[in-house]
């Protein structure tokens, strides 16, 4: 029988803000991908926390657990689930939830987040975060799914706004209204993905600044930033694809800098999934987020004092 390795978690579970000359800047982390395992282990102080998709660690042993266990000794960890399909018609898969609970107990992540989306229906997993109509019926159903998930995992979860390529004619409320009510009914908090917000705004013809203003900021517990591809629609207009394959775009940085003073201390994460840069380049993107937020906070205080 294999010895079961129980990690002793020497590291505080929650990432801390960093003091800077201008004041405090938020904890900044990166999405951890296997090609960066060794580099991250060699230089764990480069970021304030790591995030992984728990689905990629639902195995018995091997390199995935070896490296995540070692890194968890050094850094706080966040789980970002992609498989629960909470916005779907079917109830969350109990077996999957039980496996996630085991993983949560083992690694003790400071956050567990999921999406305002669905990905499974009728026994098929579609491997994408799919959109749903923002209706009262879907709000009631998703609130129940989120509550059930929180019960099974024994903790509050975060729900993230999605990247949209399509919307539904039957939607009865805005995304922000849906999320605010979801949080109120289920007790979940929110993950504000500013890249997703911008991608959805351009693709649906919405105003990203108005969306940001309407977003229920008091419920935000984590921020995501990522890069997107800029394509063209048939009519020559912009079509953005949420590829996580390049640096964060300037309009996304602008939105982030604007909201950062209101969300001081909220952990911010860089996601990069395709065309992975080397570890130092990824770390520099997280450092930039920390620095921008710190500057924006200092500036806001300066304006308030003046």
């Amino acid at each position, binding site marked *: 029988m294999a010895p079961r390795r129980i990690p002793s978690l020497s590291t505080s579970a929650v990432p801390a803000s960093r003091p800077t000359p201008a004041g405090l800047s938020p904890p900044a982390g990166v999405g951890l*991908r*296997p*090609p960066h*395992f*060794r580099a991250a*282990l060699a230089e764990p102080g480069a970021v304030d926390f790591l995030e992984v*998709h728990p*689905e*990629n*660690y639902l*195995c018995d*042993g*091997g*390199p*995935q657990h*070896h490296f995540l266990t*070692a890194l968890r000794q050094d850094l706080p960890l966040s789980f*970002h689930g*992609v*498989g629960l399909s909470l916005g779907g018609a079917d109830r969350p898969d109990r077996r999957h939830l039980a496996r996630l609970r085991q993983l949560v107990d083992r690694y003790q992540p400071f956050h567990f987040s999921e*999406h305002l989306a669905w990905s499974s229906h009728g026994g098929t997993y579609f*491997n*994408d*975060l799919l959109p749903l109509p923002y209706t009262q019926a879907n709000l009631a159903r998703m609130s129940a799914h989120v509550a059930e998930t929180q019960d099974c995992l024994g903790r509050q979860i975060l729900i993230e706004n999605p*990247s949209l390529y399509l919307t539904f004619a039957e939607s009865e409320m805005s995304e922000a209204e849906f999320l605010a009510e979801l949080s109120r009914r289920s007790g979940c908090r929110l993950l504000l993905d500013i890249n997703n917000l911008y991608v959805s705004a351009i693709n649906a013809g919405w105003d990203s600044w108005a969306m940001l203003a309407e977003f229920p900021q008091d419920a935000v517990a984590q921020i995501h930033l*990522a890069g997107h*591809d800029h*394509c063209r629609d048939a009519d020559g207009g912009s079509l953005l*694809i*949420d*590829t*996580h*394959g390049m640096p964060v775009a300037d309009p996304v940085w602008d939105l982030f800098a604007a909201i950062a003073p209101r969300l001081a201390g909220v952990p911010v994460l860089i*996601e990069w*999934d*395709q065309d992975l840069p080397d570890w130092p380049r990824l770390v520099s993107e997280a450092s930039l987020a920390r620095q921008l937020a710190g500057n924006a906070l200092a500036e806001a205080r300066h304006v308030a004092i003046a």
Partner: protein
Amino acid sequence: MNRRTAGLTIAGSLLSALALSAVPAAAEGTEKCYGISLAGQNDCASTGGNSCAGTSKVDFDKQAWKLVPAGTCETTMVTLPDGSTRPGSLAPIES
């Protein structure tokens, strides 16, 4: 050879094997695994696959029935169970 002699022969083999064999690289001690992997055997090969990113590279829906293998099949010589040897082929083989 009686049972006891056979048992001692086996014991001798086991003790020789213990003396002859190297200790395998353990899961603990990552440094032991640096540099010993052959190309393609790297330990980060299993990336999981779940992601929350989309893709803008449209590369699905290939016309399979028009395709023939174009990799290294033709340089991979294979002996079939009936003893004949043949390479992979760029064109479907009539059977």
